[in-house]
């Protein structure tokens, strides 16, 4: 299960909407071993494409050095699909190289990119390990302090 606070959830959705029709991507870092996504880090999609995303290589190095210094890991790796459902594509599965991460997918298709869209928004999370995809429940909590109380 992925537990994410509502501010982070909203930030991921807002980023996906802002970059539509291109795919948006980023990470939410958290203390190593905590499984708590705490620090929202939107990344530039160097591919600037509606069908592909890739973190810029210089930004990627900077991100990992920063996480290393803070003893963090990428708890969530998110990206959007802008014309298809929020399910990992074959490319997503082939290229997933962080077996410890929650891979979050948001779909902005069918008008969901519009902040005024009042229908359901697809926000789903997966583990992707050695080509195997396992969907998991997403729980949105007011804050991580709240999550620790129950």
């Amino acid at each position: 299960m992925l537990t994410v606070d509502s501010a982070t959830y909203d930030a991921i959705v807002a980023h996906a909407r802002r970059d539509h029709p291109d795919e948006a991507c980023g990470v939410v870092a958290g203390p190593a071993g905590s499984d708590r996504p705490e620090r929202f880090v939107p990344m530039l999609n160097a591919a600037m494409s509606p069908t592909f995303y890739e973190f810029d290589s210089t930004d990627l190095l900077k991100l990992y050095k920063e996480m290393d210094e803070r003893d963090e890991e990428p708890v969530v790796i998110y990206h959007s699909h802008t014309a298809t459902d929020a399910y990992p594509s074959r490319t997503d599965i082939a290229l997933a190289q962080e077996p410890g991460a929650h891979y979050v997918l948001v779909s902005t298709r069918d008008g969901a990119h519009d902040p005024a869209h009042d229908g359901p928004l697809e926000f789903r999370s997966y583990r992707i390990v050695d080509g195997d995809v396992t969907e998991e429940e997403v729980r949105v909590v007011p804050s991580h302090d709240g999550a620790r109380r129950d």
Partner: protein
Amino acid sequence: MAIELRVPTILRTYTGGAKAVSGDGTTLAELIDDVDGSHPGIKERIVDGGDLRRFVNVYVNDEDVRFTGGLKTGVRDGDVVVVLPAVAGG
């Protein structure tokens, strides 16, 4: 002195969990060969044929080697080489 190779989580199965290993060589290719000698299998995850894998990034002293000669990039004692899988998808 030696050259430090920092290994991403997904490749630490080859290093017994170590975050960094050391090796020698005058080019990136030689360094990877040397490290593969003590950690067999790691090279195949970084190199495909005679080139770096498309979705693996390698940096020598913070420079992406794609811009400095790829596997032919020169290395020397004291250098830090970082391997990071690309974060990418479709």
